[in-house]
């Protein structure tokens, strides 16, 4: 008998901890996988090549080229975002 039992305090049992942890992680991972699902396999290499092209002109970081594929109604939309910082813009003017 533990101190908790003697004091009449009910501890949360390990199975309910497991249940709570699983609910959170599974929901999180499902959302992440859903975002990837249906995305064509070529997205990572497309992103890499675009990065190389842009880098000929502007020095940007890997995460500045964002690319995603979405289904909107019947249309598939390929969305491409290249965010430039103030420093990048100066680069652009110099070139």
């Amino acid at each position: 008998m533990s101190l908790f039992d003697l004091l009449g305090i009910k501890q949360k049992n390990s199975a309910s901890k497991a249940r709570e942890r699983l609910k959170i992680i599974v929901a999180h991972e499902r959302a992440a996988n859903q975002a990837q699902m249906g995305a064509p396999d070529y997205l990572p290499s497309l992103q890499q090549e675009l990065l190389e092209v842009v880098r000929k002109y502007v020095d940007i970081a890997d995460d500045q080229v964002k690319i995603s594929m979405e289904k909107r109604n019947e249309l598939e939309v390929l969305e491409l975002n290249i965010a430039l910082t103030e420093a990048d813009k100066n680069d652009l003017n110099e070139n």
Partner: protein
Amino acid sequence: MSTVIVVTSGKGGVGKTTTSAAFATALALRGHSTVVVDFDVGLRNLDLIMGCERRVVYDFINVINEEGNLNQALIKDKRVENLYILPASQTRDKSALTQVGVTRVMEALKERFEYIVCDSPAGIEHGAQMAMYFADVALIVTNPEVSSVRDSDRIIGMLASKTLRAEQSLDPVKEHLIISRYVPGRVNKGDMLSADDVQDILAIPLLGVVPESDAVLKASNEGVPVTFQEDSDAGQAYHDITARFVGEDRPQRFIQEQKGFFSRLFHHP
């Protein structure tokens, strides 16, 4: 019309091969012509669990590479009519499972068998993807334990995207949950996830629960699928699971503690 069933889990060691062997045997015992196929190329074990390891001459990869034909590779079970085993190769790796080759073998099996049970390797890589690709139905084997449940959820996601049915926008793969190594007493004490908990998290229908059982180790020791131990709890659980699978109504006997009934049944002098 034949049905392709994948037995899968993501995590290793949860009971995929035990389930494949026991379920395929139970189907055959009910009179259905059944083949159980080992997709675990490089780590074959289905032959050992089925007790036919010394009868393997040609294997799945030999058939894919046309080094032998399907009839040479299929091993007929000696205990039950209508049951065949297609062993995996022990010397090759999973890349030998080419899509074209697997398609050809599956088409040939569909000509001959009512049920094709595919024993998936662990993991989510090529071997596991090939095992699930042609599935009409999936048996997802899960232990009531966090890592197994999480991995099963990952596999369920893949069934919805990386199968022929998903690619061709056919009806989705039908999913059934099997919870194995279940200990009702520990669930009651709050030390183990309950069948309800697991079902609730994975959100797929429960086909059955297989209790943690000495019979499973005994079965693998002897190379006799646990289904043949008709008086064991695990053996009965697999008979129940198979009966439900083919549409019979059976009560879930193994979710609750079986103390009275089973101690009377098994421990009488």
